[in-house]
Protein backbone atom coordinates (compact mmCIF):
# COMPACT_ATOMS: atom_id res chain seq x y z
CA UNK A 1 0.00 0.00 0.00
CA UNK A 2 1.31 3.43 -0.74
CA UNK A 3 0.06 6.95 -0.78
CA UNK A 4 -0.73 6.89 -4.46
CA UNK A 5 -3.20 4.04 -3.99
CA UNK A 6 -4.94 6.10 -1.32
CA UNK A 7 -4.86 8.93 -3.82
CA UNK A 8 -6.88 6.75 -6.18
CA UNK A 9 -9.64 6.65 -3.57
CA UNK A 10 -9.80 10.43 -3.18
CA UNK A 11 -11.54 10.73 -6.52
CA UNK A 12 -14.57 9.03 -4.94
CA UNK A 13 -14.72 11.36 -1.94
CA UNK A 14 -16.41 14.76 -1.82
CA UNK A 15 -13.86 17.56 -1.52
CA UNK A 16 -14.37 18.34 2.20
CA UNK A 17 -13.83 14.69 3.17
CA UNK A 18 -10.86 14.07 0.91
CA UNK A 19 -9.16 17.22 2.26
CA UNK A 20 -9.69 15.97 5.84
CA UNK A 21 -8.33 12.48 5.10
CA UNK A 22 -5.44 13.85 3.09
CA UNK A 23 -4.44 16.06 6.05
CA UNK A 24 -3.58 12.98 8.13
CA UNK A 25 0.11 12.40 8.91
CA UNK A 26 1.86 10.42 6.18
CA UNK A 27 2.56 7.37 8.37
CA UNK A 28 -1.16 7.03 9.16
CA UNK A 29 -2.23 7.77 5.61
CA UNK A 30 -0.04 4.98 4.30
CA UNK A 31 -1.57 2.42 6.62
CA UNK A 32 -5.27 3.13 6.17
CA UNK A 33 -7.35 0.04 5.36
CA UNK A 34 -10.76 1.64 5.03
CA UNK A 35 -12.45 5.02 4.72
CA UNK A 36 -16.01 4.88 6.04
CA UNK A 37 -18.77 7.36 5.33
CA UNK A 38 -22.06 7.21 7.21
CA UNK A 39 -25.03 9.37 6.33
CA UNK A 40 -25.45 11.96 9.10
CA UNK A 41 -22.78 10.02 10.99
CA UNK A 42 -19.07 10.28 11.59
CA UNK A 43 -16.37 9.96 8.96
CA UNK A 44 -13.89 7.35 10.13
CA UNK A 45 -10.82 5.58 8.87
CA UNK A 46 -9.66 2.11 9.86
CA UNK A 47 -6.05 1.20 10.49
CA UNK A 48 -5.72 -2.50 11.13
CA UNK A 49 -8.08 -3.05 14.04
CA UNK A 50 -8.25 0.61 15.13
CA UNK A 51 -11.01 3.06 14.21
CA UNK A 52 -10.02 6.72 13.97
CA UNK A 53 -12.26 9.77 13.68
CA UNK A 54 -11.28 12.99 11.94
CA UNK A 55 -12.29 16.60 12.49
CA UNK A 56 -12.66 19.12 9.69
CA UNK A 57 -8.93 19.83 9.65
CA UNK A 58 -7.98 16.18 9.41
CA UNK A 59 -6.89 15.91 13.05
CA UNK A 60 -7.63 12.70 14.91
CA UNK A 61 -10.37 13.45 17.41
CA UNK A 62 -12.98 11.80 19.65
CA UNK A 63 -16.20 10.54 18.06
CA UNK A 64 -18.19 13.56 19.28
CA UNK A 65 -16.01 16.05 17.39
CA UNK A 66 -15.75 14.06 14.17
CA UNK A 67 -16.88 15.37 10.78
CA UNK A 68 -20.53 14.53 10.16
CA UNK A 69 -21.12 13.27 6.64
CA UNK A 70 -24.09 15.03 5.04
CA UNK A 71 -26.78 13.45 2.86
CA UNK A 72 -25.41 15.31 -0.14
CA UNK A 73 -21.87 14.03 0.52
CA UNK A 74 -23.03 10.40 0.66
CA UNK A 75 -24.99 10.93 -2.55
CA UNK A 76 -22.02 12.58 -4.23
CA UNK A 77 -19.76 9.71 -3.17
CA UNK A 78 -22.22 7.17 -4.62
CA UNK A 79 -22.49 9.28 -7.81
CA UNK A 80 -18.71 9.24 -8.15
CA UNK A 81 -18.50 5.52 -7.47
CA UNK A 82 -21.14 4.76 -10.08
CA UNK A 83 -19.96 7.36 -12.65
CA UNK A 84 -23.32 9.07 -12.24
CA UNK A 85 -25.14 5.94 -13.45
CA UNK A 86 -26.37 3.88 -10.51
CA UNK A 87 -28.41 1.63 -12.81
CA UNK A 88 -25.16 0.39 -14.40
CA UNK A 89 -24.16 -1.09 -11.05
CA UNK A 90 -27.57 -2.52 -10.09
CA UNK A 91 -26.46 -6.13 -9.76
CA UNK A 92 -23.43 -5.24 -7.67
CA UNK A 93 -25.31 -2.81 -5.43
CA UNK A 94 -27.92 -5.50 -4.76
CA UNK A 95 -25.03 -7.65 -3.44
CA UNK A 96 -23.84 -4.81 -1.20
CA UNK A 97 -20.84 -3.45 -3.05
CA UNK A 98 -19.72 -1.28 -5.95
CA UNK A 99 -16.58 -2.30 -7.87
CA UNK A 100 -14.09 0.53 -8.23
CA UNK A 101 -12.65 1.46 -11.60
CA UNK A 102 -9.17 1.48 -10.01
CA UNK A 103 -9.71 -2.11 -8.76
CA UNK A 104 -11.18 -3.14 -5.44
CA UNK A 105 -14.61 -2.30 -4.18
CA UNK A 106 -16.71 -0.11 -1.94
CA UNK A 107 -19.11 -1.83 0.45
CA UNK A 108 -22.51 -0.19 0.78
CA UNK A 109 -25.50 -0.59 3.06
CA UNK A 110 -28.76 1.21 3.54
CA UNK A 111 -32.48 0.81 3.01
CA UNK A 112 -33.46 -2.10 0.80
CA UNK A 113 -36.48 -2.89 -1.30
CA UNK A 114 -37.23 -5.88 -3.51
CA UNK A 115 -34.93 -4.55 -6.24
CA UNK A 116 -31.93 -3.95 -3.98
CA UNK A 117 -31.08 -0.68 -2.24
CA UNK A 118 -33.54 2.16 -2.46
CA UNK A 119 -31.24 4.41 -0.43
CA UNK A 120 -27.59 4.15 0.54
CA UNK A 121 -26.69 5.16 4.10
CA UNK A 122 -23.09 3.98 4.44
CA UNK A 123 -20.11 3.56 2.14
CA UNK A 124 -16.95 1.68 3.05
CA UNK A 125 -14.10 2.39 0.67
CA UNK A 126 -11.70 -0.49 1.10
CA UNK A 127 -8.08 -0.24 0.16
CA UNK A 128 -6.56 -3.34 -1.32
CA UNK A 129 -3.03 -4.10 -0.31
CA UNK A 130 -0.67 -6.18 -2.32
CA UNK A 131 2.18 -7.36 -0.11
CA UNK A 132 3.82 -10.11 -2.16
CA UNK A 133 5.72 -11.82 0.66
CA UNK A 134 3.06 -11.96 3.35
CA UNK A 135 2.26 -15.61 2.49
CA UNK A 136 5.90 -16.69 2.31
CA UNK A 137 5.68 -18.98 5.39
CA UNK A 138 2.91 -20.98 3.69
CA UNK A 139 4.80 -21.14 0.39
CA UNK A 140 7.83 -22.53 2.25
CA UNK A 141 5.62 -25.20 3.85
CA UNK A 142 4.00 -26.09 0.48
CA UNK A 143 7.40 -26.17 -1.27
CA UNK A 144 8.79 -28.49 1.38
CA UNK A 145 5.84 -30.88 1.79
CA UNK A 146 3.83 -30.55 -1.41
CA UNK A 147 0.65 -28.66 -2.28
CA UNK A 148 -2.09 -29.13 0.31
CA UNK A 149 -5.48 -27.61 0.98
CA UNK A 150 -5.22 -24.74 3.43
CA UNK A 151 -7.72 -22.83 5.49
CA UNK A 152 -6.76 -19.27 6.45
CA UNK A 153 -8.57 -18.05 9.53
CA UNK A 154 -8.77 -14.80 11.48
CA UNK A 155 -11.34 -12.26 12.62
CA UNK A 156 -12.37 -9.61 10.06
CA UNK A 157 -9.75 -6.97 9.10
CA UNK A 158 -6.73 -9.10 9.98
CA UNK A 159 -5.59 -9.43 6.38
CA UNK A 160 -7.14 -12.66 5.09
CA UNK A 161 -7.74 -11.28 1.61
CA UNK A 162 -4.25 -9.74 1.52
CA UNK A 163 -2.84 -13.14 2.47
CA UNK A 164 -4.86 -14.92 -0.25
CA UNK A 165 -3.75 -12.35 -2.83
CA UNK A 166 -0.15 -12.93 -1.83
CA UNK A 167 -0.37 -16.74 -1.93
CA UNK A 168 -2.15 -16.60 -5.31
CA UNK A 169 0.66 -14.44 -6.67
CA UNK A 170 3.54 -16.44 -5.16
CA UNK A 171 2.18 -19.78 -6.38
CA UNK A 172 1.23 -18.48 -9.84
CA UNK A 173 4.60 -16.86 -10.53
CA UNK A 174 6.53 -19.62 -8.78
CA UNK A 175 8.35 -17.54 -6.19
CA UNK A 176 10.01 -20.00 -3.79
CA UNK A 177 8.17 -22.88 -5.48
CA UNK A 178 7.57 -24.27 -9.00
CA UNK A 179 4.86 -22.17 -10.77
CA UNK A 180 1.38 -23.66 -10.30
CA UNK A 181 -1.87 -23.34 -12.22
CA UNK A 182 -3.81 -21.16 -9.79
CA UNK A 183 -7.49 -20.32 -10.25
CA UNK A 184 -9.11 -17.62 -8.14
CA UNK A 185 -12.85 -17.74 -7.46
CA UNK A 186 -13.22 -14.02 -6.84
CA UNK A 187 -16.90 -13.49 -6.13
CA UNK A 188 -16.56 -9.91 -4.95
CA UNK A 189 -13.70 -8.69 -7.18
CA UNK A 190 -11.28 -8.41 -4.28
CA UNK A 191 -8.62 -11.10 -4.36
CA UNK A 192 -7.20 -10.56 -7.82
CA UNK A 193 -6.84 -6.77 -7.53
CA UNK A 194 -3.29 -5.89 -8.52
CA UNK A 195 -2.22 -9.39 -9.55
CA UNK A 196 -4.14 -9.88 -12.82
CA UNK A 197 -1.99 -11.50 -15.46
CA UNK A 198 0.59 -12.80 -12.97
CA UNK A 199 2.19 -16.12 -13.96
CA UNK A 200 -0.23 -19.01 -14.28
CA UNK A 201 -3.14 -17.19 -12.68
CA UNK A 202 -6.76 -17.54 -13.90
CA UNK A 203 -9.48 -15.42 -12.36
CA UNK A 204 -13.22 -16.01 -12.34
CA UNK A 205 -14.90 -13.00 -10.80
CA UNK A 206 -18.46 -12.03 -9.99
CA UNK A 207 -19.80 -15.60 -9.72
CA UNK A 208 -20.99 -17.16 -6.43
CA UNK A 209 -18.09 -19.12 -4.92
CA UNK A 210 -19.78 -22.55 -4.95
CA UNK A 211 -20.59 -22.32 -8.66
CA UNK A 212 -17.20 -20.79 -9.44
CA UNK A 213 -15.32 -23.62 -7.72
CA UNK A 214 -17.31 -26.23 -9.68
CA UNK A 215 -16.84 -24.37 -12.97
CA UNK A 216 -13.11 -23.80 -12.46
CA UNK A 217 -12.57 -27.44 -11.52
CA UNK A 218 -14.31 -28.63 -14.67
CA UNK A 219 -13.02 -26.15 -17.19
CA UNK A 220 -9.62 -24.82 -16.12
CA UNK A 221 -8.04 -27.91 -14.53
CA UNK A 222 -6.22 -25.85 -11.91
CA UNK A 223 -3.81 -27.31 -9.39
CA UNK A 224 -5.01 -24.89 -6.74
CA UNK A 225 -8.23 -22.95 -6.30
CA UNK A 226 -8.22 -19.91 -4.07
CA UNK A 227 -11.34 -18.29 -2.65
CA UNK A 228 -12.35 -15.96 0.14
CA UNK A 229 -14.69 -16.52 3.07
CA UNK A 230 -16.18 -19.94 2.43
CA UNK A 231 -19.38 -20.83 4.24
CA UNK A 232 -21.72 -23.80 4.64
CA UNK A 233 -23.19 -23.09 1.17
CA UNK A 234 -19.96 -24.03 -0.57
CA UNK A 235 -19.33 -27.32 1.25
CA UNK A 236 -20.60 -29.54 -1.56
CA UNK A 237 -18.57 -27.73 -4.24
CA UNK A 238 -15.46 -27.86 -2.06
CA UNK A 239 -15.83 -31.62 -1.48
CA UNK A 240 -16.44 -32.15 -5.19
CA UNK A 241 -13.26 -30.23 -6.04
CA UNK A 242 -11.35 -32.20 -3.42
CA UNK A 243 -12.43 -35.44 -5.11
CA UNK A 244 -10.93 -34.28 -8.40
CA UNK A 245 -7.56 -33.71 -6.77
CA UNK A 246 -7.64 -29.92 -6.74
CA UNK A 247 -6.30 -28.30 -3.58
CA UNK A 248 -8.26 -25.45 -2.12
CA UNK A 249 -6.88 -22.47 -0.25
CA UNK A 250 -9.72 -20.60 1.38
CA UNK A 251 -10.34 -18.18 4.20
CA UNK A 252 -12.94 -18.22 6.98
CA UNK A 253 -13.97 -15.70 9.58
CA UNK A 254 -13.23 -17.03 13.06
CA UNK A 255 -11.46 -15.90 16.19
CA UNK A 256 -9.38 -19.02 16.80
CA UNK A 257 -9.03 -22.70 16.02
CA UNK A 258 -11.51 -23.75 18.73
CA UNK A 259 -14.19 -21.64 17.08
CA UNK A 260 -13.29 -23.17 13.71
CA UNK A 261 -13.69 -26.70 15.06
CA UNK A 262 -17.12 -25.93 16.50
CA UNK A 263 -18.63 -25.19 13.08
CA UNK A 264 -20.40 -28.29 11.81
CA UNK A 265 -19.71 -27.86 8.10
CA UNK A 266 -16.16 -26.69 8.65
CA UNK A 267 -15.52 -29.63 10.94
CA UNK A 268 -16.81 -31.89 8.16
CA UNK A 269 -14.31 -30.36 5.71
CA UNK A 270 -11.45 -30.70 8.19
CA UNK A 271 -12.35 -34.33 8.92
CA UNK A 272 -12.47 -35.04 5.18
CA UNK A 273 -8.92 -33.75 5.00
CA UNK A 274 -9.87 -30.94 2.61
CA UNK A 275 -7.60 -28.65 4.62
CA UNK A 276 -4.55 -30.49 5.95
CA UNK A 277 -3.02 -27.08 6.72
CA UNK A 278 -4.33 -24.13 8.69
CA UNK A 279 -2.96 -20.59 8.73
CA UNK A 280 -3.96 -18.42 11.67
CA UNK A 281 -3.55 -14.68 11.21
CA UNK A 282 -3.36 -12.47 14.26
CA UNK A 283 -2.30 -9.11 15.56
CA UNK A 284 0.26 -8.71 18.30
CA UNK A 285 1.58 -5.21 17.83
CA UNK A 286 2.09 -6.23 14.21
CA UNK A 287 0.40 -8.80 11.99
CA UNK A 288 1.32 -12.43 12.73
CA UNK A 289 0.99 -15.54 10.58
CA UNK A 290 1.18 -19.09 11.96
CA UNK A 291 1.10 -22.21 9.74
CA UNK A 292 -0.18 -25.38 11.45
CA UNK A 293 -1.20 -28.92 10.53
CA UNK A 294 -4.88 -29.45 11.20
CA UNK A 295 -4.29 -33.02 12.42
CA UNK A 296 -2.47 -31.47 15.37
CA UNK A 297 -5.57 -29.82 16.74
CA UNK A 298 -8.39 -32.07 15.52
Amino acid at each position, binding site marked *: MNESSIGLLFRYLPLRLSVAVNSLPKDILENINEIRLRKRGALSVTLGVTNLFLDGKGNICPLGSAITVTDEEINECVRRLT*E*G*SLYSYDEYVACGFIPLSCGGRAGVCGKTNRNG*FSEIYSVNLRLHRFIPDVAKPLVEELAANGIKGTVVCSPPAFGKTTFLRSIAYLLAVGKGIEPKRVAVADERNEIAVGIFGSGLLDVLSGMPKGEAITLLTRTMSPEIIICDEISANETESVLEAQNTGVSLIASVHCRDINELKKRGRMKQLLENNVFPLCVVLGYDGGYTCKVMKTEDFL
Partner: protein
Amino acid sequence: MKWLGALLFVCASYLFGKRLSKDEEERLLSVDSLIRLLTYMKRRINSERTPLFELFSSFRDGYFERIGVLEEINRNRDISEEKWERVLSLMSFDADIKTELLRFFTELGTLQLEDQLKRIDYIVSLLSERQCLIKKELPDKQKTIKTVCLLAGMLMTIILL
Protein backbone atom coordinates in the same frame (compact mmCIF):
# COMPACT_ATOMS: atom_id res chain seq x y z
CA MET B 1 -40.57 58.03 -50.00
CA LYS B 2 -43.33 57.96 -47.38
CA TRP B 3 -45.02 55.04 -49.15
CA LEU B 4 -41.75 53.17 -49.46
CA GLY B 5 -41.20 53.54 -45.70
CA ALA B 6 -44.73 52.30 -45.05
CA LEU B 7 -44.15 49.27 -47.27
CA LEU B 8 -40.90 48.47 -45.49
CA PHE B 9 -42.60 48.74 -42.09
CA VAL B 10 -45.36 46.33 -43.16
CA CYS B 11 -42.78 43.89 -44.56
CA ALA B 12 -40.79 44.08 -41.30
CA SER B 13 -43.95 43.34 -39.32
CA TYR B 14 -44.64 40.32 -41.48
CA LEU B 15 -41.07 39.03 -41.09
CA PHE B 16 -41.27 39.58 -37.34
CA GLY B 17 -44.46 37.47 -37.31
CA LYS B 18 -42.72 34.80 -39.34
CA ARG B 19 -39.83 34.77 -36.87
CA LEU B 20 -42.22 34.41 -33.95
CA SER B 21 -43.99 31.52 -35.65
CA LYS B 22 -40.59 29.90 -36.15
CA ASP B 23 -40.17 29.88 -32.35
CA GLU B 24 -43.24 27.69 -32.17
CA GLU B 25 -41.57 25.28 -34.56
CA GLU B 26 -38.48 25.27 -32.32
CA ARG B 27 -40.65 24.09 -29.42
CA LEU B 28 -41.75 21.14 -31.51
CA LEU B 29 -38.18 20.36 -32.57
CA SER B 30 -37.05 20.46 -28.93
CA VAL B 31 -39.76 18.01 -27.93
CA ASP B 32 -39.02 15.73 -30.90
CA SER B 33 -35.28 15.64 -30.20
CA LEU B 34 -35.70 15.14 -26.48
CA ILE B 35 -38.08 12.23 -27.05
CA ARG B 36 -35.50 10.76 -29.43
CA LEU B 37 -32.75 11.18 -26.81
CA LEU B 38 -34.87 9.62 -24.05
CA THR B 39 -35.88 6.68 -26.24
CA TYR B 40 -32.24 6.11 -27.13
CA MET B 41 -31.28 6.34 -23.45
CA LYS B 42 -33.93 3.86 -22.44
CA ARG B 43 -32.85 1.37 -25.09
CA ARG B 44 -29.15 1.58 -24.18
CA ILE B 45 -29.80 1.52 -20.43
CA ASN B 46 -32.22 -1.37 -20.66
CA SER B 47 -30.14 -3.58 -22.91
CA GLU B 48 -26.55 -2.61 -22.03
CA ARG B 49 -26.73 -0.50 -18.85
CA THR B 50 -24.48 1.98 -20.60
CA PRO B 51 -23.22 4.71 -18.25
CA LEU B 52 -24.77 8.13 -18.90
CA PHE B 53 -21.82 10.00 -20.35
CA GLU B 54 -20.88 7.19 -22.69
CA LEU B 55 -24.47 7.22 -23.81
CA PHE B 56 -24.64 10.99 -24.31
CA SER B 57 -21.40 11.06 -26.27
CA SER B 58 -22.67 8.43 -28.69
CA PHE B 59 -26.02 10.13 -29.30
CA ARG B 60 -26.44 12.10 -32.55
CA ASP B 61 -29.20 14.59 -33.32
CA GLY B 62 -29.01 17.42 -35.85
CA TYR B 63 -31.20 19.87 -33.93
CA PHE B 64 -29.48 19.30 -30.57
CA GLU B 65 -26.10 19.69 -32.25
CA ARG B 66 -27.22 22.93 -33.93
CA ILE B 67 -28.45 24.55 -30.70
CA GLY B 68 -25.46 23.29 -28.68
CA VAL B 69 -27.30 20.92 -26.31
CA LEU B 70 -25.02 17.96 -26.94
CA GLU B 71 -21.93 20.13 -26.66
CA GLU B 72 -23.10 21.44 -23.29
CA ILE B 73 -23.96 17.96 -21.99
CA ASN B 74 -20.65 16.47 -23.10
CA ARG B 75 -18.55 19.46 -22.04
CA ASN B 76 -17.65 17.77 -18.73
CA ARG B 77 -18.91 15.07 -16.41
CA ASP B 78 -20.59 17.51 -14.07
CA ILE B 79 -24.12 16.37 -13.21
CA SER B 80 -25.20 19.27 -11.03
CA GLU B 81 -28.58 20.99 -11.20
CA GLU B 82 -26.86 24.09 -12.63
CA LYS B 83 -25.58 22.12 -15.58
CA TRP B 84 -29.00 20.74 -16.41
CA GLU B 85 -30.48 24.24 -16.02
CA ARG B 86 -27.99 25.45 -18.63
CA VAL B 87 -28.84 22.55 -20.93
CA LEU B 88 -32.59 23.13 -20.60
CA SER B 89 -32.21 26.86 -21.19
CA LEU B 90 -31.00 26.02 -24.70
CA MET B 91 -34.27 24.26 -25.50
CA SER B 92 -37.66 25.85 -26.06
CA PHE B 93 -40.01 24.53 -23.40
CA ASP B 94 -42.80 26.00 -21.31
CA ALA B 95 -41.97 26.70 -17.67
CA ASP B 96 -44.15 23.87 -16.28
CA ILE B 97 -42.49 21.18 -18.38
CA LYS B 98 -39.05 22.69 -17.78
CA THR B 99 -39.51 22.24 -14.01
CA GLU B 100 -40.45 18.60 -14.51
CA LEU B 101 -37.49 18.05 -16.86
CA LEU B 102 -35.08 19.67 -14.41
CA ARG B 103 -36.26 17.29 -11.68
CA PHE B 104 -35.83 14.37 -14.06
CA PHE B 105 -32.32 15.30 -15.16
CA THR B 106 -31.20 16.09 -11.59
CA GLU B 107 -32.31 12.60 -10.52
CA LEU B 108 -30.85 10.96 -13.61
CA GLY B 109 -28.29 8.30 -12.74
CA THR B 110 -29.17 8.26 -9.05
CA LEU B 111 -31.95 5.69 -9.41
CA GLN B 112 -31.77 1.95 -9.74
CA LEU B 113 -32.53 0.40 -13.11
CA GLU B 114 -36.24 -0.27 -12.75
CA ASP B 115 -37.00 3.14 -11.22
CA GLN B 116 -34.81 4.87 -13.80
CA LEU B 117 -36.66 3.24 -16.69
CA LYS B 118 -40.03 4.14 -15.12
CA ARG B 119 -38.95 7.77 -14.80
CA ILE B 120 -37.86 7.85 -18.45
CA ASP B 121 -41.22 6.37 -19.48
CA TYR B 122 -43.04 8.99 -17.46
CA ILE B 123 -41.13 11.88 -19.05
CA VAL B 124 -41.53 10.41 -22.55
CA SER B 125 -45.30 10.14 -22.04
CA LEU B 126 -45.40 13.73 -20.78
CA LEU B 127 -43.43 14.94 -23.80
CA SER B 128 -45.51 12.86 -26.21
CA GLU B 129 -48.68 14.52 -24.95
CA ARG B 130 -47.03 17.90 -25.43
CA GLN B 131 -45.83 16.89 -28.88
CA CYS B 132 -49.38 15.95 -29.98
CA LEU B 133 -50.72 19.22 -28.64
CA ILE B 134 -48.07 21.35 -30.34
CA LYS B 135 -48.49 19.47 -33.63
CA LYS B 136 -52.24 20.01 -33.52
CA GLU B 137 -52.04 23.70 -32.67
CA LEU B 138 -48.95 24.59 -34.70
CA PRO B 139 -50.44 25.44 -38.18
CA ASP B 140 -53.27 27.59 -36.75
CA LYS B 141 -50.98 29.24 -34.21
CA GLN B 142 -48.36 30.07 -36.87
CA LYS B 143 -51.07 31.50 -39.16
CA THR B 144 -52.53 33.58 -36.32
CA ILE B 145 -49.16 34.94 -35.25
CA LYS B 146 -48.23 35.94 -38.81
CA THR B 147 -51.65 37.53 -39.43
CA VAL B 148 -51.68 39.45 -36.14
CA CYS B 149 -48.16 40.79 -36.78
CA LEU B 150 -49.03 41.79 -40.32
CA LEU B 151 -52.25 43.52 -39.26
CA ALA B 152 -50.50 45.24 -36.35
CA GLY B 153 -47.83 46.48 -38.79
CA MET B 154 -50.47 47.76 -41.19
CA LEU B 155 -52.37 49.50 -38.40
CA MET B 156 -49.23 51.17 -37.12
CA THR B 157 -48.39 52.25 -40.67
CA ILE B 158 -51.84 53.81 -41.14
CA ILE B 159 -51.54 55.62 -37.81
CA LEU B 160 -48.08 56.89 -38.70
CA LEU B 161 -49.21 58.01 -42.14
